[in-house]
Each structure stands twice: as structure tokens, then as C-alpha cells.
């Protein structure tokens, strides 16, 4: 008699310390979701645990479970806050377009995480060196395009592009002088993601 095949990564799932993970999720969610009821928090913890199970079943145990946990906590807390804002704003319905936190293609997540790292360093570098570039770098951190930024600020797209181009020159200079090492990694230098 053939036995039912075991789902992949089930052993890896069992090997994780779920008690510690849930306690950790609870602490981080409580810090991020001030004003929410304890029931809301418990629901959010459960949501984190489910997303984590789903991730491990799909991709296996991550190298750094703590990184995965914090990523998921950030996503769950943001969802909860957005939901509450929608509930309080009668005229803004749920657009239903919220994207899954993790893509089916891991490479997509890797590129997005690399984007986060690059724009984070660029923004912090400008905070240190060139305050005038900070608003544009912040827009990049929020995932805004230059076009969207120009529309929101009511300035011309060309003007914004020129300003960003001047800022980018500073980054290129810093890279060429080995002050910044956030070179977009060519494939041979790519390292596996930490989380």
C-alpha cells in the first residue's frame, strides 16, 4: 500500500522554534500596532505564523528566520494599519489590489530587496552629504517614480529628472572613489540573499 507523500519542507517547519517566533512576533507587532486591541494583536500574530508556514512550505527554511519574521511582521502590521484606515474612511473602499508579500518567483523578491538596500544607502548617504537630494531619495525609498514625484510636487518632470541626474552623479563619484561600495552587483558577484 502506497503511503501518502510527505509535503516538502515539513521537517524544516517542525525544526523551527515556533514558541520563540510567536513571542517575538507578538513583541514586534505590539510595538508597531499601538492602539489595536489584544484580540487584533493575537489575530496578527496568527497571521504572521501562517505566512511564515506558507513561506517555508514553498521555499524551505530561510537562512535567517529572524529576518523572515521581521519582514512578515512589517507586512502584517502595514496591512492591519491600512485596513483600519480604510475602515475609518468611509469613502475609500478597499481596492483589493494589495499584492502578496512574497512573489511566486524568488528572484523577484531578491531584486526588490536589492532595490531596498540600494535606495536605503543612497538616501542615508544624501542625508549625510547633500540635503537637497534627500526628498528625491526618499521618494525612491517609497517606491515612487520620478514622474509620480513630479506630479505630486507639481513640478515639471524634466526639472525633477535633471535634479536627480545631478544627485546620481554624486553617487557615481562616491563609488568611483571607493567611498561607497553599493555597486549594483554584476551576476558573478551576486551573493545569496540573507533572508
Amino acid at each position, binding site marked *: 500500500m502506497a503511503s501518502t507523500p510527505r509535503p516538502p519542507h515539513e521537517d524544516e517547519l517542525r525544526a523551527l522554534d515556533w514558541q520563540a517566533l510567536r513571542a517575538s512576533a507578538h513583541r514586534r507587532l505590539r510595538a508597531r500596532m499601538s492602539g489595536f486591541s489584544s484580540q487584533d494583536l493575537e489575530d496578527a500574530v496568527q497571521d504572521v505564523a501562517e505566512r511564515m508556514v506558507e513561506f517555508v512550505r514553498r521555499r524551505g527554511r530561510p537562512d535567517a528566520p529572524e529576518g523572515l519574521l521581521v519582514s512578515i511582521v512589517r507586512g502584517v502590521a502595514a496591512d492591519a494599519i491600512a485596513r483600519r484606515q480604510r475602515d475609518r474612511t468611509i469613502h475609500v473602499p478597499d481596492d483589493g489590489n494589495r499584492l502578496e508579500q512574497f512573489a511566486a518567483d524568488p528572484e523577484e523578491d531578491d*531584486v526588490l530587496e536589492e532595490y531596498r538596500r*540600494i*535606495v536605503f544607502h543612497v538616501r542615508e548617504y544624501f542625508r549625510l552629504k547633500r540635503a537637497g537630494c534627500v526628498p528625491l531619495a526618499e521618494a525612491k525609498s517609497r517606491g515612487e517614480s520620478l514622474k509620480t514625484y513630479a506630479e505630486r510636487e507639481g513640478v515639471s518632470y524634466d526639472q525633477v529628472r535633471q535634479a536627480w541626474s545631478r544627485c546620481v552623479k554624486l553617487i557615481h563619484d562616491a563609488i568611483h572613489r571607493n567611498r561607497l561600495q553599493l555597486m549594483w552587483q554584476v551576476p558573478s558577484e551576486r551573493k545569496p540573499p540573507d533572508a
Partner: protein
Amino acid sequence: MPDLHDRFRGMLAAHVADLLPDEDAVWMATHARECAACAALQERIRSRLPGLADDGDHAPVSLLVRWVRAPERIPALERGLLERHLAACVTCREDAEEMTRLAGVRRMPAPRAIFLRRWRGPLAAGLVAAAALTVVFAVRLADWARPGRPDTKAPPTRGEMMPAVPESSAVVLLDHAQNTPLPGISVAGANAGLRLRVPPLDFGTDPEVLARILAEDGSTVWEASLSASALQQDIVPAMPPVGWSAGIYRLRLIPAAGRDTAATREFVFRLR
């Protein structure tokens, strides 16, 4: 030689961030026109960018993971940028603490100051100070009422424009890049002498460090040779003959008894 698709994917994040040099950006656009799979990947990435708005202000998790597990793998300036961010962002700091606990790392990596190497420009001197975590960098005035201390009301010898430090002095750490005080700096003390505390610093094998305080005009106000272990406690520079004048000062720490100037750490503070 790397595959064209790999090359595209390797540069995609920077391309989407509009950071590539023109020639690379042109190559990316050309390749996207020729390769449907790469173009689709780019489109999927762009469609997910608005989702970054929720936590775009915070440090990327992958960076925090590396900082918690292997901080030595992060290049000095980038580590400094991250630590500077952590000094100001409570949420990220708590995330890092939680990750440290979960990862079973014995303790959070010791924060370091941004390593100052030959920064140029008029604002350069203040950059390094911003890297220190708030909790480990405190500049304060402590009581210095002692017999025979000089009268703080006496006129300063250097620069008549500088008023003497008033009785209720305050010390504020400056971030020269933004010309704003850093958050969370504790300021205490009145009728006080100057005490400076720097974050844990790695001075390599040579334990002797030349410490120097420079006034705004570049003149040396105080200088002493200290052991690296002495820097783990408050630095108490001797009072100038007429007391401390208000103004901006730099504390410079030069490893190897002042020989290793390339590894100088510099901290800026203001007396007012």
C-alpha cells in the same frame, strides 16, 4: 562571461532606481525590448514598488540581518550609514534587537562611529559623529565645582565673539550635514566641567591614542595621550585657563599615538 539575462537581472534594481550610468541604462532598455522574460520581470518589479511605501523609511531587513550576524562583512561607510539610521529610528533598532535575540547572537554588534577617512568639504568634519548610536554617545557636563576653579564669567582669550559658557550650559552633539541636533543626546549638568563619552571604538593593536580638542578656528584647545581603555570611560579634558567658551568644537582621536591619521575618528559638539 555572464549571460545577458544575468547581466540584466544583476543591474535591474539599480536600473529601476534610476541610478545606472546612461550607457548601462540604454543597454537595459535595449535588452528589455529584445527579451520578453526580462521585460516581464522588470514590469513585475515596477508594479511592486508602490508596496514599499509602507516601510520605505526603515532599514531593509536583509541589511539588518547582516548587521546582526556578520557586521564585519558590511563595508565601513555603509555600516556607518546603517548605524546612523539606527540611532534615529527606534523601530529599526528594536527590530534589530529582536533579531539578535532570535538569532541567538550573544549580543548586538558593538556600534562604531563612522570611520572618518579624508572627507572633503566644509561640512566633512561633522559627518562621523552621526554614526554613533544614541545610547552610547553622550556628551554631558558634569559638576566641576572645585576649589580654585576659574571664573567662567571671565572673558575668553580666544575670539571675543565667543561668549563664555553660561552657568546653565548645555552640550549638543551636532550633525553638521543637516545642521540639526541629533535626537536623544542627553544633556545634563550646570556649573559643570566638560566630560565626553565616545562609543566603543576599535583602535587595533596599538593602545595609545592621541586625543585632541580643536576650536572652531582650528586651534588646539586641549591635547592628551590616552590609552584605548581610558576611552571606555568619560574623557575629562583639562579646563582651559578661562573656562570653556561657547562654540563648536571637534574631538579628534588619532590612533597609534597620533601616527595613524588616516584612521582618525572625529566627533563634533557644541557648547552654548
